[in-house]
Every structure is written in C-alpha cells, then in structure tokens.
C-alpha cells in the first residue's frame, strides 16, 4: 500500500509542470543570470595572482619579514616583495612595476598609485598586520611573559589574510547569491509539500475525498506523499548543486559532499513548510502555490537573494531573524562550509534545519489528523 502510493506520488510529481518549472527551470535560468551578472568579478577572483609589492624596510623589521614569507592565498604567495629604498620604490610604483609600497616602522604604512582589487588586498593586509601587532605590543607591556605569544599571533595574521574578502567583499556577496539561490530551490520545495495535504484531505480536493473513502489509512497516504516529496526535492537540490558547481563552475569549496548533504537537508525544510502551509485553511492549491512561492522568495529576499547585503541589514535591525529565517539558515550552512574549517557552525545550521523540518512536518500531521470535516 505504502509503496503503491510512493510509486504513483513520484510519477505524479515528475509530470507536474509547475514543479518542473519552479524547481528545475527557474533555478537554472536564475543561476545563469547571476553567472553573467557577476562574471567579470568572478574572473578577477579566480585569476588571483601574487601582488608585486615594494617594501621600504628602514628599520630592518625581522618579524615583518617572516610574516611576509608565510602569507599566501589560494596556494600562491600573497605578495611578491622587492626590498628597496624610497626613491627606487616610488619609481617602480610610477612605472607600474609594483602595485604598492609598504613602509615598515612603528606601524606599517602603505602607498598605492591607483584603486583596484590588488590595492584593496594590500590595504587589508596592512591594516590587519597593524592591528595584530598593536595587540601584541599591549600584551607584552602588561605582561612580558605573554610576549611569547607574539609569534603565534603574528602568524595568525597570515591566516587572517587568507580570509580576506579578496574583492572588496565581492567574492562573498557574489557567492552568497548562489547560496541564496540554493535556499530558494529548497524553499520552493514547499510547492511539492503543498500537494501532500491537497490530495489527502477530503475538504481540499475531490481526490482527497475519494482517498478518504478508501480503506487505506490517511496516515499511510500522507507518509507516502511526504516521503516521495522528500525524494523529489532532494533530487532537485542535487541537480541544482551539480548544475551550479559543474556547469556554471561556482566554487563551493573543498567539501562538496557536505554541500550535497546540506542541500538535501535544506530541501526537507521546504517540503515540510509546504506540507504545513497546505494543511492550513481551505484555499485551493493554485492559491496556496502562489502564496508559498511568494513567501519563499520573500524569505530569500531577506536573506540576500536580490540585494546582497540584505542579511547584514537584517542582522542589524532584527538580530534574531536570521536565526529563524529558513532561507538565511540554509544559505548560511553553505557559507559556513566554505568559510570555516571546523564543523561547529555547519553542524549548528544542519541541526537547526532538521529541527525546523521536523517541527513543520509534525505540525502538518497534527493539522491533517482530523478524521471528519465540518464542511466540504
């Protein structure tokens, strides 16, 4: 009975035009649009090359020299350094042989000739270095024993530079759009979920009425529909990730298997959300589809699908909101995976998603559990 239901649920879903549009076609087109819109930026990022820099080191700063050597980005050294004097350095900058001049001293200072990505990176590096050395100095003044940590902290500067938002923060924003795109596909799973209540509730459709007359318990029909919706949505998520990664070449980081895992889990949030929405009230399926698409897009908007820094704005205005906005949680899960080498934040996001999904599904079950209807 259960398998029979699953088989036909899957068949029905695969032939539903709305589903194919919202869950497959629409994300593909939007992904393509993003890719074209951001392509210029993306090229610059992927073609990152070591920055030629002149260093005027009149104080013979050994700490600085050792940091310079260890700093690298994307496996390449961050800086290609030429030690020289002030005159020569200025000449090189004017001729365009170097992108900037770093002066050592009490604090590092930087001079550049124009604005650009490389210059921004240099600026970020210098600021970060100065910040760290100030911290070290202050610590050392208070407690000389602590000064031993100086080296450790300084080498952290190297790590920090690896996390530089290489292009004015554009890499971040750029890839955020794709994370939000995935969040959108996940939440569009709600249109699949809607179907579950629709075909199992006598007050929502004639098919629901007919199924309610059969000796197959409603719980069987609903679980089968829920299961097949999860399967369908997971397939759509896998398709989207694969398309973004291997067709558009979006870099989701090293741990692609976890990206897939996160995608699959986020899909269940969308399906459960739809199931829950579908069980509410007695609007017809088209109206509910409209509502769930709108709701999904709105949540994704607040998480930065249309305007990149929306999530930061929300974090300032309504700090709790990003923690409960499923779109934000979903896109964050991908972000964490790319940004942090540990699993703490990622695990937290995955657990949040699972809890949301389970809670919504239970709520849906609770609402559809009714046996007789007051009105059909």
């Amino acid at each position, binding site marked *: 009975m259960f398998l029979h239901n699953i088989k036909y649920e899957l068949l029905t879903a695969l032939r539903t035009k709305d589903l194919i549009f919202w869950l497959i076609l629409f994300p593909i087109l939007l992904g393509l649009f993003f890719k074209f819109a951001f392509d210029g930026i993306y090229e610059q990022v992927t073609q990152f090359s070591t920055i030629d820099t002149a260093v005027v080191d009149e104080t013979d700063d050994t700490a600085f020299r050792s940091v310079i050597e260890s700093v690298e980005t994307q496996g390449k050294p961050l800086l290609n350094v030429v030690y020289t004097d002030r005159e020569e350095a200025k000449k090189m900058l004017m001729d365009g042989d170097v992108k900037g001049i770093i002066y050592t001293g009490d604090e590092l200072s930087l001079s550049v000739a124009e604005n650009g990505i490389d210059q921004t990176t240099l600026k970020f590096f210098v600021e970060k270095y100065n910040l760290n050395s100030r911290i070290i100095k202050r610590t050392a003044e208070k407690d000389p024993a602590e000064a031993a940590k100086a080296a450790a902290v300084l080498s952290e500067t190297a790590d920090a530079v690896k996390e530089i938002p290489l292009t004015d923060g554009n890499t971040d924003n750029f890839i955020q759009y794709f994370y939000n795109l995935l969040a959108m596909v996940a939440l569009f799973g709600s249109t699949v979920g809607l179907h579950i209540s629709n075909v199992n509730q006598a007050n929502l459709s004639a*098919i629901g*009425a007919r199924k309610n007359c059969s000796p197959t318990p409603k719980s069987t029909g609903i679980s089968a529909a829920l299961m097949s919706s999860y399967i369908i949505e997971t397939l759509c998520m896998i398709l989207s990730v694969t398309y973004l990664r291997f067709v558009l070449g979006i870099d989701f980081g090293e741990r692609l298997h976890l990206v897939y895992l996160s995608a699959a889990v986020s899909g269940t949030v969308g399906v459960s959300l739809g199931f829950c929405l579908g069980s509410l009230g007695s609007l017809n399926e088209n109206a509910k589809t409209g509502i769930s698409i709108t709701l999904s897009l709105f949540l994704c908007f607040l998480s930065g699908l249309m305007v990149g820094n929306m999530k930061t704005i929300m974090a300032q205005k309504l700090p709790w909101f990003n923690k409960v906005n499923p779109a934000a949680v979903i896109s964050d899960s991908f972000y964490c995976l790319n940004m942090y080498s540990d699993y703490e934040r990622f695990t937290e996001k995955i657990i949040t998603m699972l809890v949301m999904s389970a809670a919504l599904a239970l709520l849906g079950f609770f609402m559809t559990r009714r046996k007789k209807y007051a009105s*059909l």
Partner: protein
Amino acid sequence: MENTVVKIENLVKRYGDLIALDHLDLEIKRGEVLGLLGPNGSGKTTTINCLLSLLAFNKGRIEIFGKEMSPVAYDIKKNIGIIMQNVAVFDELTVYENIDYFCGLYITDKAKRKQYVEEAIHFTGLEEFLKFYPKKLSGGLLRRLNIACGIAHKPELIILDEPTVAVDPQSRNKILEGIQQLNRDGATIIYTSHYMEEVEQICTRIAIMDKGRKIAEGTKDELKRMIKNTETITIEVIGLSDADRSVVAGLPHVYDTAYDGSKLTIYCSGGKHNLIRILGVLQERELSFGRVYTELPTLNDVFLEITGKALRDKEE
C-alpha cells in the same frame, strides 16, 4: 447475510443556521438500486458525505453492513465504491494509471488488481484510451473514467452522486446501462440525481428529498399512487364557454380544469374511460376539437403535489 446494507437514522446536519439534513431516515436493502431524487440543494450530496464519514453531522446514526460507520471503519470502507459528483482523478496520470492507483488503495494483491483493473476498463469501454491523460478525454469519457476508478475493486455497495451531469445522451445511456449491470452482478446501489427520468428508468426504489427532508419514498408506482392525479388530459379546443367548462368539470373523477383560450387541461383522479366521457360532452355541445393528449403522472407530479413546486423548471 445482513439484509439491510445501509441504515440512516435521524440524521441532522447543519451548516451554521442552514439545516442541510433535517432528521433524515433511510434504509437500503441488499440488491436494491435506491434513487435519491431531489432538486439541487436538497441535501443529496450532504447525505452521501455523511454516509461516508467525510462530514461530521450534528445528530443521528449511520450503519453500513450492520456496523456503525466511522472514518476508521476500514472493513466497511473496503466494500464501498464511491463515484463523487466532482470528477476525482489525477491529471498527471493516464487512464490506466488512475484506475490502477485507486484500485490499489483497496486491492493489494498485484495479479488480482491487474485483472480487476482490466475488467473495469472493459466494463466502462475505455480500452482505446488507456494511455490518454484525463485532460484529453471528452466529458462523457471522463465520467466513465471517474466511474471506473470507483468500481474497479468490485465493491458490494456502490454510491453514485449525479454521475451523468454534463454528459451527452449516448454516454448517459451507457452509464445507466452499466449501473444496471453492476446491480445484476450483485451490487447494491445508491444513485442520486435531479433527473427524474433517469431515476424512474433504473431505480427499484426512490426516495424523494426536498430541503433536507425525505418527503416520499417507494417504488415509482407506489409513489404515483400516493397522489390523486392519475391522468392529465389536454384538448385543443377554441371558443369554450364557462358553461361548457363547468359541465366538463362536473364529470366524475375530474378534480380540476384549466383553460387558456385554446387548450383545455383536465386533471383526473382514478376511474376509467375519462377521455371518452369528456370527448362525448364536447361532441354533445357541438364543440370542434383539435389534437388530444393524455399523460400519465410523472415523478414531477408527485413532487409538485407534495411540495407545491416543480422538481425543476427546465432541463439545464
């Protein structure tokens, strides 16, 4: 074997202030084709939905196959076939898949199901449309698919709610014949309609409903015997005086007359040779008459006499 298949006692269903079913009692015996006849809004669908435990009702009791019906009475449900007023099939599934899907909710054994599905296809004459999607079917074929989905599991009790609405006469006849065939094959049938001709044609017993109440019940002959009209005679005649008309009205068995200047209508109750007697009077009074019609009472007359209004104005 229990002889009463369905027993509805004192059923009351309210929608807010509206009383959709007003203390309804109804019994259906094994092997019957029971017609629920009533105008739109009289409560037929509501009765069916309560019967199936889809609708919660305010008062009353429903037994099917001698057991109390409930949403979880799966042993009862597996022997019921339901054809709803609204077509209930998946647009995304083909004719064959739809029948197989719904049959599969009742029959788990695959081989048996395959056989049943094929029999249902044959029975409804859908052989040539197996790969069609419902959207591609004509109204009549769609109704037949709807029926196939409801009866494939060979239920003992089949409930059809207005299965012929918006169906061409040919398909309608096929559907009516099919229902009689199912009955001959042993199924008990509940058939709702607002078309009295259909109900007269196929039902062994008829319950007439109006405003949520059962206003009459019996075989069609029993129902017709309930009313005083036995014959309505219409005669085309011009220049009839009031005196002429009162002579006709005074004849035995005539209980009412009407005259519109060209047509005289005479309502008779019982008796024989009414027509000959009336024509004799007209001849005696040297009135020439044109065409003459005589009609036996219909269920509409029954409805009219009980409720004071026609069952329906015109075929829609």
